[in-house]
């Protein structure tokens, strides 16, 4: 019987809810494992889950320096989409989208995946043509995409300023109907419980402070809770990639860590029932089930490991919001926070074996890692188990920059702050 079901809810309610088990244990780390995963965020936890579920590798530890879900998996703006231009990105993110569509059932945990669509706005005819091109590229690979006229957009999002006198008049948009949002904490908790029930040790408050080596080979880690050995050590630490790889003696990487801010307003009545992105700047917004508008914009634009940002970006994001929705001028912002993003040199991720023997690397998610959580863990687990990438992540190597095989969806070049 599934652990969470209508029957278990009823029987536990009748017993006064005394018999629920914690969603994951709090084990002390063992001396050795088959696989150590550094980083107890979404990607690390989903990697552990798929290692156990798909590959039968259960002697696994996930090491998390803080508490579970304290990093980017709990700091993102929850959007899930697969509206990319380049085929290697489209295939990977569409694989992720298909996994999202069944994730709550697979995990027996309600991740509240809501396919409310994602609408990209165009503000010039040229931009509209560009969206049509992207939509065609998506449809060519079997992903859903629909161009929307201004009349359709005005019906879908009545609060938008659709007038010709708007600061950036809207001329159309591209909708991916299957895109949407998910409850990000539930994703972390669901994967953690699924991995834990299959025997994975999730060790919180366990910071990696160094790597154990045998010559070049990585054979384990030093942590604040002692030495732990493993045949395979996987790194999935997002914004902390620079820090952790430095401990392994890899000083230079095609990665910069940048801070991205996010914001939420006070609760409103139903205001917008899709994910909306602005085309004349970097701005995206959706409404949470509690009613708060959840939104964000660009990264601050300089290297940062601080999980907080500066005021100029706050100002810019608010002005973008008001350019689209003048009616929100008097809505109060409730909270803002920051997360550290691992910005890669082409805006695409890295899921690969190496760069040292015994090591596996998952990074470069820029600020789009949340939607990738299922496929990232699935592909990373495959790569760790088989010592070779799956076709979905084969393009996402570390040496693609050297080989000239960059995957630059935005066509921006090696300037991470612009991706």
């Amino acid at each position, binding site marked *: 019987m599934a652990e969470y079901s209508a029957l278990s809810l009823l029987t536990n309610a009748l017993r006064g809810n005394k018999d629920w088990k914690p969603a994951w244990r709090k084990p002390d780390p063992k001396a050795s494992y088959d696989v150590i995963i550094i980083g107890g965020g979404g990607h690390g936890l989903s990697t552990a889950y798929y290692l156990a579920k798909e590959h039968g590798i259960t002697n696994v530890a996930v090491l998390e320096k803080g508490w579970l879900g304290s990093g980017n998996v709990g700091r993102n703006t929850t959007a899930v989409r697969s509206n990319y231009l380049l085929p290697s990105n489209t295939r990977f993110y569409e694989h992720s989208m298909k996994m999202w569509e069944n994730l709550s059932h697979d995990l027996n945990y309600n991740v509240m995946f809501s396919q409310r669509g994602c609408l990209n706005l165009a503000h010039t005819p040229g931009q509209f043509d560009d969206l049509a091109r992207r939509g065609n590229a998506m449809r060519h690979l079997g992903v859903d995409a629909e161009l929307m006229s201004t009349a359709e957009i005005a019906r879908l999002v009545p609060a938008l300023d659709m007038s010709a006198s708007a600061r950036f008049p809207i001329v159309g948009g591209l909708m991916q109907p299957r895109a949407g949002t998910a409850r990000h904490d539930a994703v972390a908790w669901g994967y953690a419980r699924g991995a834990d029930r299959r025997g994975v040790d999730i060790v919180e408050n366990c910071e990696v402070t160094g790597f154990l080596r045998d010559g070049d080979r990585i054979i384990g880690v030093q942590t604040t809770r002692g030495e732990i050995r493993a045949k395979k050590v996987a790194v999935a630490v997002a914004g*902390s990639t620079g820090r952790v790889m430095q401990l392994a003696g890899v000083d230079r*990487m095609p990665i*910069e*860590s940048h801070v991205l801010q996010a914001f939420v307003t006070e609760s409103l009545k139903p205001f917008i029932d899709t994910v909306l992105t602005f085309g004349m700047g970097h701005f995206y917004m959706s409404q949470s089930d509690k009613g708060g508008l959840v939104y964000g914009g660009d990264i601050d634009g300089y*290297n940062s490991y*601080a999980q907080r940002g500066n005021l100029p970006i706050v100002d810019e994001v608010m002005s973008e919001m008001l350019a689209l929705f003048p009616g929100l001028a008097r809505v109060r912002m409730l909270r803002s926070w920051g997360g550290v993003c691992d910005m890669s*040199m082409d805006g695409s991720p890295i899921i690969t074996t190496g760069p040292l023997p015994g090591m596996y690397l998952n990074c470069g998610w820029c600020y789009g890692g949340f939607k990738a959580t299922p496929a990232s863990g699935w592909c990373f687990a495959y790569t760790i188990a088989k010592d070779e990438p799956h076709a979905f992540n084969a393009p996402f190597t570390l040496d693609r*920059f*050297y080989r000239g095989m960059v995957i630059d969806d935005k066509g921006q070049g090696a300037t991470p702050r612009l991706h």
Partner: protein
Amino acid sequence: MLITCPYCGPRDVIEFTYQGDGNRERPQPASQDLDAWNAYVYDRLNPAGDHNEIWQHSGGCRTHLRMVRNTVTHEISSTGFARGDHNAAARHKAGGKS
């Protein structure tokens, strides 16, 4: 964040453009050393702590700055002109001085 421009004094960060890791060395333009070009274009030092970086006062006097900024606290411990030591080619022109 306030950045002290050597010409203009302390100014708000919005007047500046970030140009990234200041530890990279640009090969001579005629160089065919692929490793050196790859390192220059794609590899970055990404420390948590003091970081040597290049900025431009693009919304002001447009001078290029070299500064040391802490990436954890955002404190800036030194700023100065980037001129002359921004890349190997410039160093070469200046007679090998760094």
